């Protein structure tokens, strides 16, 4: 019962996040975390909402909770990298995005954040490689979206 209720709350939160209703998303995710604190996805989603609300330090803390539960949670590493990037902590952001892209080589965001961090750290050649990988993945995604649009 708590598990299905947690999933229901997570879906509601995702819906709110898509609608940019971050406060509402946070309220729902607080409930989900209270109900099942061992569910990594609830922490991850709360981090996503907090980044949108510019609460970057809190978002990092939520990502760390998610990663304590599941250290191979690639999306949580990407979110952590994003929050760290916003705080201009480029070295740890690079480490997080590298971990994310190792766990999920198809995550365009992770490669892009890696590119930005490398660029900020003056490693332009490595940045170019990361950007190229990110672009390749984005194009694949875009072609798929285009296909969906045409089918509609």
């Amino acid at each position, binding site marked *: 019962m708590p598990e299905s209720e947690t999933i229901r709350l997570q879906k509601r939160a995702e819906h709110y996040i898509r609608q940019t209703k971050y406060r509402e998303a946070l309220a729902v995710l607080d409930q989900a975390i209270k109900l099942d604190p061992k569910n990594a996805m609830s922490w991850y989603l709360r981090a996503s909402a907090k980044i949108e609300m510019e609460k970057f330090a809190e978002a990092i803390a939520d990502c760390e909770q998610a990663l304590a539960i599941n250290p191979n949670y690639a999306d949580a590493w990407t979110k952590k990298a994003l929050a760290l990037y916003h705080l201009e902590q480029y070295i740890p952001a690079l480490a997080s995005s590298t971990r994310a892209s190792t766990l999920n080589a198809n995550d*365009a*965001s992770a*490669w*892009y954040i890696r*590119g*930005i961090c490398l660029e900020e750290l003056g490693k332009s050649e490595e940045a170019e490689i990361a*950007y190229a990988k990110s*672009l390749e993945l*984005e194009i694949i995604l*875009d072609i798929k979206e285009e296909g969906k649009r045409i089918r509609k």
Partner: protein
Amino acid sequence: MKTNMPLSRPIRKFINETEQLLDTDITLLRKPEAAPGGTLIDVYTYNLEKNIIIFPANYIGLLKDFVIAKQCTQLLIKGAAAEKSGYRVCSYDQDSVYKGMRQIYFDALKDEAKKDKKLPVKKLLEMLFMLFRQFHDDLNELPWNPIVNARVYYRMEQLRKTQLYILLKDGKQDMDEMSDMMEIIPRRYFVLDKSMFYARDLYLAKTLPADKLMPVVNIPQMKKFDHLEVKEMLTTRWTHTAWYQSKVFGDHMLEIMEKYLSVDWNKENSLDYYANLYETGVNMTNALMDYMTMKDWFIWEKTQHLLAAQEQAATYEQAALKKIFGDLIEDQV
């Protein structure tokens, strides 16, 4: 700038420069239903306090950066024009709509005479304003496209691969547009529409330079004209196809583009530079309108004029139909 999304350093710098030059604010917005090329909602067109650049939610990296670079360049052109000489767009009024629709009607009559399958009258009447608007939209967008793309290409080196992908995608889409209406609309307008896109792609292929943008290499309907000998072109059935005619008209339009777009694309950002780009775009639009004999279809006016015209569009259309067909129109509409 207001955004929570990651941005590469050159893009951040470009947005900041744009805001400083124009003394304005830019907000970036990601939306699932956004147009693939992004949308710019700007203070020079609408009564707003800040500018908004909207792009598709699945654009998360360099695709997003390219849309931002393109829209910021467009914003700089508009803003510099507003600051220096006044920003005007191609608009229309009741009289110009009548002139445009009347010309389309005459051309449709010429075409209909040659067709076995005639277009139903109701469809023919609907087509007149639809085509008028199509060319209005194209003329308000297309001439700025090579300007913005050339500028982004020279100023944002790291976006070149992304740009090539977007341009190839746009080129194919623009060439496919109207294809399903090829047999319905007068040949002249199908050809002119395709010619504009053909010339744009060819100009960009030469300017960027990117061989893959050549329509005769990349657009399926155009491929057959690559390596075709002149004699063969002139003596065979190709001369009768709309796509071949698009190539011929497109080559002329390319000459117009090259004549007007002799610009130093690599100059530093300044209001004077972008104001000059605006003048270049206006002059090239006028030349294209002249070439397509559409000069009295459109008028250069303030953006408020166009917004009001768009609200009055249905009234203008009805008034023009009445003027062309007199009392006959009431039996048909």
